[in-house]
């Protein structure tokens, strides 16, 4: 993946302009002498049949963010069809979707496709109207489309879309079809409930793990537990004696080498795996320890690293400050831990391969299979199912590679299941990082300098840069990395941001909101420290630092400080910021604020309220007020759900989750030791959406980054103790300096 620009891969807006073009799908000419087309397919997304059946293709993976609702809604809005009656098809890599991105990443599925889907729908609608006008021999402006039919307004005549199929297909394709006036939207911008909900609540929705292929066998794989270790040998005898075990095979692909045990059902495979004897070569990283690595990260503060931002002369301003503050923040390795563990079903035949998989990137799976098997593209089918949680983990296809390798050896279809322990221990983790923060203030509490040195690992998902590439001192700044440090939105008179990359042997990848959580944790916590030291209100200070509400241009980003100020002002009102919280006899209470701007397109502020027992035990997150401006909200109901989801995700990392390594292996095994939030720990979440007609921004990830600093700032407010290392597990407060 070296050649792929990291930001373009992970973020939506970085390639939004490229994505705006509608790829026009031209159906293959039919070999038969059929005179009239039976379907009208003006582009890859839409198919209308003579029986009025409308099929819309979904070009992103549904993993809870609502794409199977929001994307069809954008098409149906412009096409003027009833969303409840359309048939949805999941797009598959191949000829039909050539040139159309199917990968789901960067919170951009709804926002990034919005324009092109509207255009695709409008194109079809205009061609249908033109077909009707020509049938009636009337002026097209006297016709209008509504609910799957074209009406001739003066005469009241109508033709259904199905009746217009043949003629519509002959119409010229409009280059710039008129889009609807947003004031007339029936679907977009309205609260839309999830289309798949009836199947989900009845247990009939199909995830990767639910697919059943006739004749399929079941497998689990014992993978090398050591980072970078290798399989040396295995003894399959005992495993093969387990009833219903059908075979044991080495696996060379995937995240690590291993041994697959195949059975007639999952249970047989699991029992067979228990009976397996495997010898591993622990490899070069057998002493890797995440505690030691955290110290290595801190040691790297001594290095210059790569310049990211330079505004004014920060070192000089620091010297002139009457008071300087220093703090170091740490963020641990984190796992994605979706409830649906990794899995894949593969059916490799002599001259074909078919896989069923819950993945965020079917095109990568498709390309890998082409390479692995040497098959032409059209002999490969990658079916994307519903995804039982992605969060970035499923931007990898290591589980597909394994299943394909195994099915090829077996000559049969096989379902490879990862157990929870497999999934916890073999991830592409959020990289640990450390942030060194410095600020200088003058006697009046003005901030004269802000210095942020971020130390972390590059995401190994892209392959590590070469020595030659590393010679370019601007390489990270050009990539607008690290997110959250590069795009520091505040108007500091002197600002210096640097990045020091430190490699680790840990496989790392995008984790919900990628670089932001660690850098925003440091930035927003430290700003709270500075505000307290300067005797200033943390909310008003942020507004002052965003004044005069101008546009900050950074690389490709246009950060609208005015939008952020309005979000902060609404937060002040909705969180009752100016009214003091009343501690009770038994409990301390505190309130904290943090903000973030994602790629200059989504603006968010969170105010957390916490309470603790007087002995600092029993931390409870009581309430989180979240104000968002993510541009025009395509589906406000879905957006509110994503806020609640992102906050819960952020709380899991803030309070519980982290991945440790000892002796080159992951320590955690399951939700027992990699804990995530549960119902009884949840705060009340209040979401306020700022009405906006700005172009829609993404929202799958954006509520995550402010959570940890908002909670840390609230804890400080309650206790006077500053937590700078996640997670804030039991004992953190007692240890806090």
């Amino acid at each position, binding site marked *: 993946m070296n050649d792929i620009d990291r930001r373009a891969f992970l973020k939506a807006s970085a390639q939004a302009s490229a994505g705006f073009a509608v790829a026009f799908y031209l159906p293959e000419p039919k070999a038969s002498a059929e005179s009239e087309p039976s379907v009208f397919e003006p582009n890859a997304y839409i198919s209308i049949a003579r029986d009025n059946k409308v099929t819309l293709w979904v070009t992103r993976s*549904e*993993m*809870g*963010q*609502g794409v199977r609702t929001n994307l069809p809604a954008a098409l149906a809005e412009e096409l003027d069809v009833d969303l409840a009656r359309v048939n949805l098809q999941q797009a598959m890599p191949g000829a039909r979707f050539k040139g159309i991105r199917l990968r789901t990443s960067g919170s951009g599925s709804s926002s990034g496709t919005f324009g092109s889907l509207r255009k695709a729908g409008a194109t079809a609608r205009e061609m249908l109207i033109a077909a009707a006008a020509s049938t009636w021999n009337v002026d097209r402006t006297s016709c209008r489309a509504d609910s799957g039919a074209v009406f001739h307004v003066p005469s009241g005549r109508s033709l259904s879309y199905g009746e217009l199929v043949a003629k519509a297909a002959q119409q010229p394709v409009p280059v710039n079809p008129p889009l609807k006036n947003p004031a007339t939207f029936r679907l977009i911008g309205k*609260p839309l*409930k*999830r289309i*798949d*909900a*009836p199947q*989900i*609540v*009845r*247990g*009939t*929705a199909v*995830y990767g*793990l*639910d697919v*059943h292929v006739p004749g399929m066998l*079941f497998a689990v794989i014992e993978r090398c537990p050591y980072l970078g270790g290798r399989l040396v040998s295995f003894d399959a005898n005992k495993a093969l004696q387990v*009833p*219903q075990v059908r075979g044991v095979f080495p696996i060379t692909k995937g995240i690590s080498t291993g041994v697959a045990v195949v059975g007639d*059902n*999952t*249970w047989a495979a699991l*029992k067979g795996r228990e009976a397996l004897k495997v010898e591993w070569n622990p490899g070069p990283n057998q002493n890797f320890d995440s505690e030691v690595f955290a110290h290595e990260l801190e040691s790297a503060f001594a290095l210059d690293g790569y310049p990211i931002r330079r505004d004014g002369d920060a070192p000089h301003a620091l010297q002139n400050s009457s008071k300087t503050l220093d703090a170091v923040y740490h963020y641990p390795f984190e796992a994605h*831990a*979706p*409830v*649906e*563990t990794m899995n894949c079903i593969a059916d490799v035949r002599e001259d074909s391969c078919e896989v069923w998989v819950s993945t965020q990137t079917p095109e990568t799976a498709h390309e890998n299979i082409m390479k692995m098997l040497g098959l032409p593209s059209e002999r490969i089918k990658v079916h994307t199912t*519903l*995804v*039982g*949680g*992605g969060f970035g983990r499923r931007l990898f296809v290591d589980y597909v590679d394994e299943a394909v390798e195994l099915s090829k050896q077996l000559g049969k279809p096989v379902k490879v*299941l990862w157990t*929870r322990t497999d999934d916890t221990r073999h991830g592409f983790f959020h990289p640990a990082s450390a942030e060194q923060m410095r600020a200088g203030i003058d006697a009046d509490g003005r901030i004269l300098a802000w210095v942020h040195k971020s130390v972390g690992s590059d995401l190994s998902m892209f392959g590590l840069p070469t020595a030659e590439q590393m010679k370019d001192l601007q390489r990270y700044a050009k990539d607008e990395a690290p997110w959250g440090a590069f795009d520091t939105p505040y108007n500091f008179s002197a600002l210096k941001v640097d990045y020091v990359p430190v490699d680790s042997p840990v496989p790392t990848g995008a984790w919900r909101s990628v670089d932001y959580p660690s850098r925003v944790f440091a930035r927003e916590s430290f700003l709270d420290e500075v505000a307290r030291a300067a005797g200033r209100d943390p909310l008003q200070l942020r507004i002052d630092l965003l004044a005069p509400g101008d546009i900050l241009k950074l690389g490709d980003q246009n950060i609208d400080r005015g939008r952020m100020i309005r979000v902060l002002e609404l937060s002040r009102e909705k969180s009752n910021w100016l009214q003091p919280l009343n501690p009770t006899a038994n409990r301390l209470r505190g309130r904290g604020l943090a903000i973030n701007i994602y790629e200059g397109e989504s603006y968010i502020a969170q105010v957390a309220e916490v309470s603790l027992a007087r002995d600092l035990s029993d931390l409870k997150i009581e309430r989180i007020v979240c104000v968002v401006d993510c541009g025009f909200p395509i589906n406000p109901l*879905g957006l509110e*759900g994503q806020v*609640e*989801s*992102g*906050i*819960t*995700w952020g709380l899991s990392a803030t309070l519980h989750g982290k991945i440790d390594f000892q002796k080159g292996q992951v320590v955690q095994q*399951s*939700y*027992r030791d990699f804990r*995530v*939030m*549960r*119902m*009884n*720990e*949840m705060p*009340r*979440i209040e979401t306020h959406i700022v009405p906006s007609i700005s172009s829609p921004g993404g929202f799958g990830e954006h509520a995550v980054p402010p959570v940890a600093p908002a909670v840390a700032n609230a804890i400080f407010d309650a206790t006077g103790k500053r937590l700078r290392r996640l997670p804030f597990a039991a004992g953190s407060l007692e240890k806090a300096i």
Partner: protein
Amino acid sequence: MAVHVLTINGKQQAIDADPEMPLLWVLRDLLLLTGTKYGCGVGICGACSILEGHLPVRACQVSLHQTAGKSYTTIEGLSAAGDHPCQRAWIDEDVSQCGYCQAGMIMSAAALLHRIPKPTDADIDEAMSNSVCRCGTYQRMRRAIHKAATQRSKA
């Protein structure tokens, strides 16, 4: 292998399999009732929650040999028309995100409402906190359970 007779969703089933096989894999691999999800296999995530009689159990923690003569309900059998008050409330409140854990959540909630028709927030916390939703749909789930309780009492 041995034949075990148990009732699933009102239908008697004779299952010939390893007595130690967890009911989860009996349901999913042998009966193709895939609404009951695998999440951890060790009883801590709740994705495979089903009903034994009216009590919630983890299908991954029940071995086939323990099921003889017992009656189980999975999400597929919770209601004939898919309109159990919880199922309706889940749709009304737009609870589901990725949706993977939701069948287990709904089964736990249905068991709660059977035991306590008008649960308090504390009752809900107690009944639901054995289950994991990584998407974080807890707030809407709580609303849906309260709503289902209201609808149930009206019915």
